[in-house]
């Protein structure tokens, strides 16, 4: 983790594409989710849909 506090960072142009590294064991979880079929087929698609679902769940929790 960086030593710099997030709020102290200068604003920068945001790309909507993020490269995430997953190791071989973490990718096994992607395999499990791929087998479920609910979140998509490609690794990037599965991660995106899971993160979006997390945001949805958090929003629901906040409203509850």
């Amino acid at each position: 983790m960086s030593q710099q506090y997030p709020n102290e960072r200068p604003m920068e142009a945001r790309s909507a594409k993020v490269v995430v590294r997953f190791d071989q064991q973490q990718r096994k979880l992607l395999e499990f989710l791929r087998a479920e079929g609910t979140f998509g087929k490609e690794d990037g698609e599965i991660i995106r849909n899971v993160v979006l679902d997390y945001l949805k769940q958090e929003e629901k929790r906040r409203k509850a």
Partner: protein
Amino acid sequence: MTTATLGSCRLDLTLQPVSGKALPVHKGEVLRVTQVEGEQCVDFNCFNLHDYKEYMSVGHMRREGFHTRQGQYIWSNPPRYRPMMKVLHMPPTCVTDLQGARCSAVLFEVHFGIDDHPNCQDTLAEAIGEYGLTPDDTHDSFNMWMNTEIDHVGYYTTWNTGRAGDHVDLIALMDVLAVPAICGSGNLWATSNFSYKPIRIQVFAASPESAALAEEEWRAQCSLKTQRTLKDFRNQSILTEPELRPVPGYQPQFPNYPIEWKEIEVAFRSEDFRKIMLYRGTAGDTDEEVVRTLFFYWYLDNRKMHGLRWYNPAQAHA
């Protein structure tokens, strides 16, 4: 299921202060430990009767809580990590402890200047000596009727709440060498309210019901590929010499070594991305860290199987 009709009592003895006894308890049999007068701490060790290198792991029991209760298990040491016994009965006045390890002669010399005080290390060692085990084979105790609490510094002992007639029933899920002992610290410490008392020990033979329960529990808790035993070890020999020397040509085989990373591009709509970035600072400092963290928060919230307790830090912050 925490009840079963017991078979006949095949062994009944009273442990006098400050003794202990190593007792084979076979699968389906029940070990009963009873307070005769109350307020007596009982230290407990447990070994696989057929493989003494498999023994109770207090550290792994602690992962399920600091005070083992009725319905919980005595687990063995990884890589075996198998259920050795289950607590069938435990009254609320029996508070158990997994923090205190076991008292030893050293503690009494350090704290009181007494160099020959009874202590659980030596009592347990003498008891297991009957089966050819050495003082080095003694392990940390599951302490029954040992009231301890925990604060920001560590654990501390409080007044023993055991009552005369209280009993704990432990059903064996494998053949074990069970070793109850009268705690040696009890006359100088609150572990047994500053006096020693006897403890009654009984072993009940397996009944059809207790045998079926033991088998059912064994199947339920011992079906994992990763619960490995001696036959699965690369090196199955046990050192007989105390001196450690490197094994010529030895190559460790660390699981999944080396770690192989894969870069995965994840595309978000900009409005979604803005929401994700609100987690910067609490779920990671970089875009990558935040996305990976939120993925795992979701996974642990929604797909984690039984076992480990999981508290989502993001919810704790809310």
